[in-house]
């Protein structure tokens, strides 16, 4: 499955504002592909959101999934 990913915060400097990944079925595969392509990400303290909810652990994706890579928050 093809998945669009939106990126926020500091990781935009590495990943850009958004990107597309092919053949990913779940969040773990998204992370693995990204870590392979962008090894600098591994050290970074980011979170993943699926459909606007933070993901802890792994989750399956479907055609309507919105995946977001969230750099460490720095609002306020």
């Amino acid at each position: 499955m093809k998945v669009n990913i939106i990126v926020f915060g500091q990781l935009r400097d590495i990943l850009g504002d958004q990107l597309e990944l092919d053949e990913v079925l779940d969040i773990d595969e998204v992370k693995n592909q990204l870590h392979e392509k962008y090894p600098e990400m591994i050290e970074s303290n980011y979170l993943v959101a699926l459909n606007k909810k933070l993901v802890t652990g792994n989750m399956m994706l479907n055609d309507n999934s919105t995946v977001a890579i969230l750099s460490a928050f720095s609002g306020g």
Partner: protein
Amino acid sequence: MKERAVKNIFVKGAMAASFIADSIQKHQAKTAIGGHSIFLGQVRADTINGKKVTAIEYTAYEAMALETMHSIREEVLSKYPLTCMHVYHSLGIVAAGEICFFVFTSSEHRKAAIEACNELVERIKAELPVWGKELFEDETYQWKQNK
């Protein structure tokens, strides 16, 4: 159980002192209120590696931030007996010295307003998908890091 609508908290650019004054003024008709607690975040002109911050540019994952804020709001309202709660956060560029974050709680007795305001500030900083980019005078930048 009452369902509250998801409120927008984002405003474009800095918040003027008159915006805060208007918000205070509107509460003078609510004569059950005995105390207001207000937190204001202001952009600091920090010097980092010899370069001065002239502004912060804020971005947010707005749809997620508003949903997260909605949950925080519901939880804080169910925990404290508040008369009012208002939260505003700037997006875009806010110059050093300007206000970028405004939390305003009101209650009959001061304790609820004070504690709720503090809790909101901490939770919003920790949980809302919002990012600041510190812009330097030489047009370089650095992503802000919250402590």
